[in-house]
């Protein structure tokens, strides 16, 4: 059943629910909150990448009696942050450190200004151990820094028979592609406030995506029953994955200080600490070896995906999973093998960032498709057209595409709105004859799976609640958080639509584990499709409760609904409904073989980048960026377009600006002065076009769209740079100095092999 019924509120640009507070400055972020008697906390971190802790000394010149000092010995429960791999990442390093900036000692003082000198005065002596800083160093396995082999996670996905396919190839094309670390760079740094009391236990307020992740972590760290830990999300100033798992660690730190100090303790990272110590996007290396026929059809794909996971597992297993599943792109190929590894190194753990592994492998496959086009002698758009997945095809994991899919139509539209053919022809003419500035056009086509991978949503088993008061005003009870994406507004629209009300009749409860059920983490492009659907079901269930009592008829007006709520609450008390996730019947996933329906639905996209490369300054600039995407039903056109534009801007930064400079495992450019993100003067003109093909899994046909726009820009931009400058760059970020080196150097490395070679990628 496809829900394409006309709607009153869904699909309209309803105003951002919490927008008034944001434009007046009244919105309260964590650093805006001051509790009575509150102290401030700070973290003493490791200065080396790996080693045994010999001694911790508290230096002269500080009156240490004024400070509360916490080390690993003060932890009442387990010294670990449980997420995917248990007993891995400690709350505080005790015997040894495994990465620079690892937390070792915590300090608290009533006066924030006194903390810096105290942090500097703590001296930690180490016996250094050999450390690993790159995928290459880790995969050599000469030094083992994690587990038995440095492998945090390994996947093998197999479809068909890759090894037999090479002999039929007209062309074999190989390539290696690399992506760097990327900082989420939310403008609000990480921060929490912890309070402790014997009666209430531990209360955490903070900037975060996933209150129940924090809740789960603290139960273990403090050895407390569930009712003695309460986690409340404050207004959150951007997250992008960077506040998915890290807040659990900071919350534990603040909680330990609060417990020992007997005062509430606030920890707010400054920018330098946040950049140096917290998670970033996993650096990657992807290797593609592909067999194609003389017309450019994919016959076989042998793919290696390698991620740098950093010192602890954290979310690397699931990031690798998404990277693996997206690595074959939106293409049909009967013979695919993907071998993927997340490698441990001695850098701070890499973590979640919008796209969650997909931007890395989409970069690889979409750069590679252009190399195939070149080898075959067809255009980049044509090689994609000839290989696009269609309804009824199976993906790399054997997932049958049941929904209609219109990649060819989207390609046509993207080429049309970007005036691709005319511009490309003109640029080719002009680039040949003239000017220091070369122009080019590049394409990327891709998909992004909505919801948790594989069986994830079954395990999450999400629950939502909806309450109505006597006046008929509704409150949505979810742990799904707002951090800019529009969660609050979208959920209000769903409820208002379902019950014939207006958005003003709906409130969203502040995410507080004492008040809201666990609707799962706010990640994985799942909130609209999964949680939105549950909230829709809860709204229908609430109307059902009123009907059961004969207070509401099948069709009803807003006034009749309000009267029914008044009558119900007068007679029966609180009016509340719930909805729990029900796995779709036709979705099947085999965790052992990594086969089946990886995601309930995919969003699809074709992006076109128009670039200018200045051959005097070696600067590449994105002039125009055209996006066509199919995301199911668009719930709110203003918020949806804002998500796409924001994701594209981050993708432009990923491709051309944002370089994490590493020195012995530590980010050395940990300031906004020298880690550069795009400004209003740098972003291209971004055009957003939606195709709407309602999806049965989401409310009113919606799918997820939040991560999609980060997947495509980088390869589209580098494909355009190849079109402009005639050089195939294979690594991002691509800075002017990188372009200079290649332009000054030799021609591009050859990616064509001798036809018939049967060797897989090394």
């Amino acid at each position, binding site marked *: 059943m496809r829900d394409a019924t006309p709607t009153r509120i869904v699909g309209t640009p309803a105003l951002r629910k919490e927008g008034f507070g944001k*434009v007046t*400055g*009244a919105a309260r972020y964590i650093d805006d909150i001051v509790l009575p008697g509150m102290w401030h906390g700070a973290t003493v971190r490791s200065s080396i990448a790996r080693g045994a802790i010999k001694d911790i000394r508290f230096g002269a010149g500080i009156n240490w009696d004024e400070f509360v000092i916490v080390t690993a010995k003060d932890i009442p429960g387990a010294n670990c942050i449980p997420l995917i791999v248990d007993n891995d990442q400690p709350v505080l390093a005790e015997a040894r450190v495994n990465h620079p900036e690892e937390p070792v000692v915590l300090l608290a003082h009533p006066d924030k200004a006194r903390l810096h000198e105290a942090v500097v005065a703590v001296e930690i002596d180490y016996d250094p151990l050999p450390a690993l800083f790159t995928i290459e160093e880790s995969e050599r396995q000469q030094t083992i820094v994690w587990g038995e082999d440095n492998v945090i996670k390994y996947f093998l996905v197999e479809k068909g028979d890759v090894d037999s396919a090479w002999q039929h190839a007209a062309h074999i094309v190989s390539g290696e592609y690399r992506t760097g670390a990327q900082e989420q760079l939310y403008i609000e*740094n990480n921060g929490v406030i912890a309070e402790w009391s014997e009666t209430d236990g531990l209360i955490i307020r903070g900037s975060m995506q996933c209150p129940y992740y924090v809740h789960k972590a603290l139960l273990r760290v403090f050895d407390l029953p569930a009712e003695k830990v309460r986690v409340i999300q404050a207004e959150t*100033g951007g997250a992008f994955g960077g506040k998915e798992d890290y807040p659990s660690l900071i919350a534990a730190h603040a909680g330990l200080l609060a417990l020992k100090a007997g005062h509430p303790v606030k920890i707010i990272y400054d*920018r330098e600490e946040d950049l140096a110590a917290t998670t970033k996007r996993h650096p990657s290396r992807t290797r593609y070896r592909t067999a194609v026929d003389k017309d450019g059809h994919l016959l076989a794909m042998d793919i290696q995906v390698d991620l740098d996971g950093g010192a602890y597992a954290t979310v690397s297993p699931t990031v690798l999973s998404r990277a693996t599943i997206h690595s074959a792109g939106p293409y049909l190929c009967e013979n695919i093998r993907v071998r993927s590894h997340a490698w441990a190194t001695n850098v701070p753990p890499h973590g979640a960032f919008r796209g969650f592994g997909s931007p890395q492998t989409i970069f690889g496959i979409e750069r590679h498709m252009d190399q195939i086009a070149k080898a075959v002698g067809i255009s980049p758009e044509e090689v994609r057209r000839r290989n696009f997945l269609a309804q009824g095809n199976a993906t790399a994991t054997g997932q049958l595409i049941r929904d209609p899919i219109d990649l060819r139509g989207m390609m046509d539209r993207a080429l049309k709105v970007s005036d691709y053919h005319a511009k490309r022809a003109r640029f080719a003419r002009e680039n040949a004859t003239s000017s220091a500035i070369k122009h080019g056009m590049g394409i990327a086509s891709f998909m992004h799976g909505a919801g948790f991978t594989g069986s994830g949503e079954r395990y999450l088993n999400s629950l939502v609640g909806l309450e109505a008061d006597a006046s008929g005003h509704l409150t949505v009870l979810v742990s799904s958080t707002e951090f800019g994406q529009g969660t609050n507004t979208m959920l209000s629209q769903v409820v208002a639509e379902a019950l014939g009300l207006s958005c003003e009749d709906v409130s969203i409860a502040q995410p507080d584990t004492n008040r809201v059920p666990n609707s799962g983490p706010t990640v994985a492009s799942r909130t609209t499709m999964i949680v939105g659907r549950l909230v829709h079901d809860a709204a229908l269930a609430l109307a059902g409760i009123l009907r059961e009592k004969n207070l509401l008829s099948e069709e009803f007006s807003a006034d009749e609904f309000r009267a029914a709520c008044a009558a119900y609450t007068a007679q029966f008390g609180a009016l509340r409904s719930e909805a729990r996730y029900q796995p779709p019947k036709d979705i099947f996933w085999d965790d052992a073989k990594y086969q089946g329906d990886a995601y309930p639905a995919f969003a699809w996209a074709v992006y076109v980048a128009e670039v200018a490369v200045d051959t005097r300054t070696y600067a590449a600039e994105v002039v125009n960026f055209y996006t066509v995407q199919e995301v199911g039903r668009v719930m709110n056109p203003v918020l949806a*377009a804002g998500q796409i534009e924001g994701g594209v801007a981050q993708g432009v930064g990923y491709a051309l600006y944002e370089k994490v400079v590493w020195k012995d495992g530590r980010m050395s450019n940990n300031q906004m002065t020298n880690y550069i993100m795009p400004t*209003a003067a740098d972003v291209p003109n971004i055009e957003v076009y939606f195709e709407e093909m309602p999806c049965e899994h989401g409310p009113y046909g919606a799918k997820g769209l939040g991560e999609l726009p980060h997947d495509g820009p980088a390869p589209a931009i580098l494909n355009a740079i190849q079109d402009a400058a005639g050089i195939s760059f294979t690594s991002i970020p691509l800075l002017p100095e990188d372009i200079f080196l290649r332009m000054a150097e030799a021609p591009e490395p050859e990616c064509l092999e001798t036809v018939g070679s049967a060797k897989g990628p090394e």
Partner: protein
Amino acid sequence: MSAAKIQLSEIRFKVNGVERSATVPPMKRLLDVLREDFELTGVKEGCGEGECGSCSVLLDGVLVNSCLVPALQASGCEVLTVEGLATNGALAHIQRTFLELGGTQCGICTPGMMLAAESLLRKNPHPDLDAIREGLAGNLCRCTGYMRIIDAVKSAIQEPILAADLAPEETVHK
């Protein structure tokens, strides 16, 4: 160096149209005086080094990063923060266009960004696209990709900006 040894100065200035004073170390950042002494927490800290613009305020009508301004330097000046944009609870035009056109997402850059827009429109009531992009380039936004912020500023050009710094008192923030 302990806090007790620092000489405190009484610093007076007009904040959002109201005479205020604070007795603080003279080198205390204007950002901290506004946030801590006056509880004007709409002024945000993003980087502490003048790169992100989240702490932007107008100082005698000039857009400044309040994290780089010592309180002493603001002595005798008029300061406009986001809390001074609305008048008696009615949103200023720039606030309405940001709200309606999607110019705010997570909201943390919004106060500074609106003040940058306000500053731009006071200097140049009819900026073209390049002037808008340049005028906002000192304020970082990680959510929007700036398109909708630029739209909000374009839309604000259509109507005169309220003389919000003449607002009689703080109206919104409590």
